């Protein structure tokens, strides 16, 4: 049993198939315009594509082939819209009661109050939305969504309108609520950190297509393509070729335009064949910094420019063997100061083999030795 979603449409251009495990929180992550919200609206019954399927637990909610298209009220869903969309003329309690019109009048208020308590917003029953903070509005929206006890909870960027500290509280509350309810959650977000914190499964989408899906841990640690690596903010995605595989030591040797790199074993690509590889900008470190181990990959480079953002210092480097490319690196302000890093200075960087991720080369040659910009 899972939530199956298939969609094919021209405008917006969507062509993908998703499967969200039952009872899990699955994040649908992608940049703006990738089709995340359209997919959520399809599941909710708010949008009808040219062709597709939405099925959950043996029920078909939408099937273009057979002409089935249940209205939202006939689907077991709860929706938390991006800006909450609370009814401005109703109090918090009345907002939740508005989702319980199928119950006798007398039963609505106790059930609404219970939902508000579950969403940690008791005591504000009589307040109107404009009298609530962003976090409180979000909790009321969650209470309204769960009051009908839906089997599928759809969250559309639910944390985008609250400040950072409130967001952290809300993350915890959502996890607790999910543990309590056990419903299937589809979380639409463009925030990878949020997805990593909250979801056990991840669907990475871009331009209406599924780029990669799987457990959050797997997807984050092992992007399947250069495109996925870029979406996962690896920062550095390049093309090399396989020299050899050392199965005994579980390593692969790569040739990056003359520089030899050691990476974890990936024998899907044979020697002599091109391969894409990626490394996070946080895993690119000064070569003589503490922690260097024998076998680390060393790349001589020149600092192109430096930008300080809070406690982090972002550097763009030109590898000496491929000066047209850009290697992105992030170090702490302390390290940058200690190492006297400055623009135009030479810098040898090390890449720990275990931090390198190799991927089958993309068909369009997208990685093509070009830097990730």
């Amino acid at each position, binding site marked *: 049993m899972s939530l199956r979603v298939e969609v094919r449409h021209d405008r917006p251009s969507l062509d993908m198939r998703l499967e969200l495990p039952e009872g899990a929180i699955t994040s649908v992550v992608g940049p703006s315009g990738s089709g995340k919200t359209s997919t959520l609206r399809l599941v*909710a*019954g*708010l949008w009808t594509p040219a062709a597709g399927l939405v099925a959950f637990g043996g029920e078909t909610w939408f099937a273009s082939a057979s002409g089935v298209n249940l*209205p*939202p*009220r006939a689907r077991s*869903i*709860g*929706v938390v*819209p*991006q*800006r909450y*969309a*609370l*009814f*401005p*003329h109703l109090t918090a309690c009345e907002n939740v009661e*508005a*989702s319980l*019109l*199928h119950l006798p009048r007398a039963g609505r208020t106790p059930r609404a109050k219970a939902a508000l308590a579950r969403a940690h917003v008791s005591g504000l029953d009589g307040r*109107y*939305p*404009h009298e609530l903070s962003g976090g409180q509005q979000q909790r009321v929206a969650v209470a*309204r*969504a769960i009051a*009908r006890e839906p089997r599928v909870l759809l969250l559309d960027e639910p944390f985008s309108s609250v400040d950072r500290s409130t967001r952290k509280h809300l993350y915890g509350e959502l996890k607790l609520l999910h543990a309590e309810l056990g419903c299937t959650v589809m979380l639409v977000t463009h925030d990878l950190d949020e997805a990593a914190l909250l979801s056990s499964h991840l669907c990475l989408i871009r331009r209406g297509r599924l780029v990669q899906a799987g457990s959050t841990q797997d997807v984050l640690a092992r992007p399947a393509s250069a495109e996925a690596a870029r979406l996962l903010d690896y920062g550095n995605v390049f093309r090399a070729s396989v020299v050899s595989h050392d199965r005994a030591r579980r390593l692969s040797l790569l040739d990056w335009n003359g520089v030899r790199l050691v990476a974890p074993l990936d024998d899907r690509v044979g020697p002599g064949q091109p391969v894409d590889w990626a490394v996070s900008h946080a895993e690119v470190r000064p070569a003589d910094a503490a922690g260097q181990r024998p076998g680390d990959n060393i790349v001589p480079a020149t600092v192109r420019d430096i930008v300080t953002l809070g406690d982090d210092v972002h550097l763009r480097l030109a590898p000496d063997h491929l000066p047209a490319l850009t290697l992105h690196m992030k170090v702490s302000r302390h390290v940058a100061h200690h190492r006297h890093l400055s623009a135009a200075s030479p810098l040898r960087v090390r890449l720990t083999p275990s931090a390198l991720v190799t991927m089958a080369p993309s068909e369009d040659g997208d990685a093509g030795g070009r830097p990730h910009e």
Partner: protein
Amino acid sequence: MEWDAIRLSLSLAGWTLAILMPLGVVLGRWLATARFAGRHWAEGLLALPLVLPPTVLGYYLLVAMGGASSVGRWFQAATGTTLAFSFPGLVVASLLFNLPFAVQPIQRAIEAIDPDVREAAVCCGMTSWQTLLRVELPLAWPGILSAAVLTFAHTLGEFGVVLMVGGNIPGETRTVALAIYDRAQSFDAGAAGSMSLLLLVVSFVTIAVSYGLGSRLPGTRRRR
């Protein structure tokens, strides 16, 4: 003071409001939410009474209601009286010339409702009818009130169409606006003046009360 004419005007305004407000909500909601080809033609047709000279509109209505038209013949066969130069004919004319005054404010008010809020109602399991009653009408209430006030005031003051369609039959189609005109033509300044003053006061009080109510209604809370 012609109390018959005043009563008839108020009765005409009451009937117009009673019929036009539900119709205005249906049409206003349809125009606010439906997307269809030729929508601007429908909106243009609806707004026509705003720009047409009242005599032109009155003439066409007179032709449409007269004994030579199928509508006029059907009405006469059904009721035994003519539609033109009768109170029911006046109500029909009033409905038509007030259509833009009733529909447009309601349409704008419903258009102003956040589409996300309307979708949230649907996701809460509400039917279209429940969404209208519980979400759209309470939020569009200031627009509906404006529509009612405009319709009421416009009906009391309409002259040209009423004269063309209803003639000026005392007790049947002679409204207060026609009575004021008649009295002024007869140099009865006292009666014309007192009826004009009454119309002025009623119109002013109605609009002022509607503004007062509008600022206190639940639908306006979100703008605070």
